[in-house]
């Protein structure tokens, strides 16, 4: 039995094509995936991302006033929550295994000194909670860890996204208008962050499940187009963002996944996976490809032939914004942006160019 978000009936009533995504019954598109993609690049679209899980970490017991939650996350996450000094600030990070493999990627929000919230992927949520609990036990931290399945999550993305949210939820404007990117604020029972997974401006809103249908309808009435996981995938790939389980998993480390910028190896801070990352230089890299030949579409698992050896595409698609096929690929270290490589598509070696992601940002091509 697939799990359902509070908006499941709304998607079905809208005629969405539904798929099994990590055990969840989710909309892949409501009609044309390409039109949904363009709506986000040019105007505003919304995604039901209630399958993702918010987990609250609060200092507990006699330690309530102490920095237990922060200290725990300083050790549990590869990125440094020490960077979170301003209330509402968000940080992207990997959660690593001791061998440096990626357990998940997540966003952590600093709400109060004794309260942090992390948002993790749907398919890995149970594994993450178990891992964090085992880590907490091992450290003996007085920490309350609460999976928030009572919350729904809606991402509103696009150049007009914020205005449309203000139209749908007028009392949110005072709090959210001053928010800089990667900052969050609370509006009553709504938790609103200026974050996203599309390369556009926008807001991600966590709210009580019971309010989800009403809020979704208000956004639709304000002119926000419902978008499915199909458009979400082409948007995030254009934006050069990894998809967990596809571009990275427990068998690769963040240095081989284009995420060195999220890993703090310079400071004295110890964290899970640090020793393993320091012990082994990255032999591979995750980078972008642009298909320059005609003859197909780049797809996951196609072989990439470079002067330094073979690599593999991890995510590939047709980019609606660029009108060309793009991919993320894991290639031997040392292959540089601008180099020509070949991709095996149905037995033909088609030419592609190595490109440093992202491909698209704020509606504009970054290809030169």
């Amino acid at each position: 039995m697939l799990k359902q978000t509070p908006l499941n009936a709304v998607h079905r009533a809208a005629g969405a094509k539904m798929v099994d995504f990590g055990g969840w019954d989710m909309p892949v598109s409501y009609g044309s995936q390409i039109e949904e993609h363009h709506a986000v690049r040019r105007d505003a679209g919304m995604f039901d991302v209630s399958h993702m899980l918010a987990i609250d970490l609060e200092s507990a017991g006699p330690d309530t006033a102490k920095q237990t939650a922060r200290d725990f996350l300083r050790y549990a996450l590869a990125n440094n929550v020490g960077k979170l000094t301003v209330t509402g600030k968000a940080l992207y990070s990997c959660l690593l295994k001791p061998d440096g493999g990626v357990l998940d990627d997540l966003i952590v929000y600093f709400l109060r000194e004794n309260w942090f919230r992390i948002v993790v992927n749907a398919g890995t949520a149970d594994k993450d909670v178990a891992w964090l609990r085992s880590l907490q036990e091992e450290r003996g931290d007085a920490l309350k860890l609460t999976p928030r399945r009572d919350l729904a999550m809606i991402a509103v993305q696009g150049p007009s996204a914020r205005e449309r949210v203000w139209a749908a939820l007028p009392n949110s404007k005072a709090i959210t208008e001053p928010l800089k990117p990667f900052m969050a604020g609370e509006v009553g029972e709504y938790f609103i962050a200026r974050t996203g997974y599309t390369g556009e401006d926008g807001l991600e809103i966590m709210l009580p499940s019971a309010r989800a249908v009403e809020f979704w309808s208000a956004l639709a009435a304000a002119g926000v187009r419902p978008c499915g996981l199909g458009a979400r995938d082409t948007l995030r790939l254009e934006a050069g963002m990894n998809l967990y389980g596809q571009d990275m998993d427990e068998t690769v480390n963040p240095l081989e996944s284009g995420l060195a910028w999220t890993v703090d190896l310079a400071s004295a801070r110890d964290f899970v996976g640090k020793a393993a990352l320091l012990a082994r230089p990255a032999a591979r890299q995750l980078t972008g490809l642009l298909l320059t030949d005609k003859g197909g579409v780049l797809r996951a698992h196609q072989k990439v032939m470079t002067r330094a050896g073979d690599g593999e595409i991890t995510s590939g698609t047709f980019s609606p914004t660029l009108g060309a096929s793009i991919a993320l690929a894991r290639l031997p270290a040392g292959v540089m942006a601008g180099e020509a490589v070949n991709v095996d598509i149905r037995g033909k070696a088609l030419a592609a160019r190595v490109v440093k992601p992202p491909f698209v940002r704020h509606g504009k091509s970054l290809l030169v």
Partner: protein
Amino acid sequence: MDLPADLKYTASHEWIRSEADGTLTIGITDHAQEALGDLVFIELPAVGRKVKAGEVCAVVESVKAASDIYAPVSGEVSATNEQVVASPEMVNADAYGNWLYKLRPDDIAELASLLDAAAYAAVVAEE
């Protein structure tokens, strides 16, 4: 589901129309285009190529996935529709109005193996 009664079908979601000149016009069904989503690439066989029934002879790719197109019967490719190669989205807009290629069949008796609209509808219902 849109299934014109004058066409024949395959379980692999091609439609086939018998023309007065003895050739077969072949496309993909409305169900196939719907399942694939927005088409962005179509590769067709060379005119003059001999194909066997069930052989992969074309490819259509949507944003989501690539899908092989099979020859419904054995024969020789007699024409291809270059318009859909230039604008694959035409197939999404009208799957029966925009054919992919034409085939001159080796043996007209092979047509008996194709499905009629009702039989194809049953195949789709089972998916």
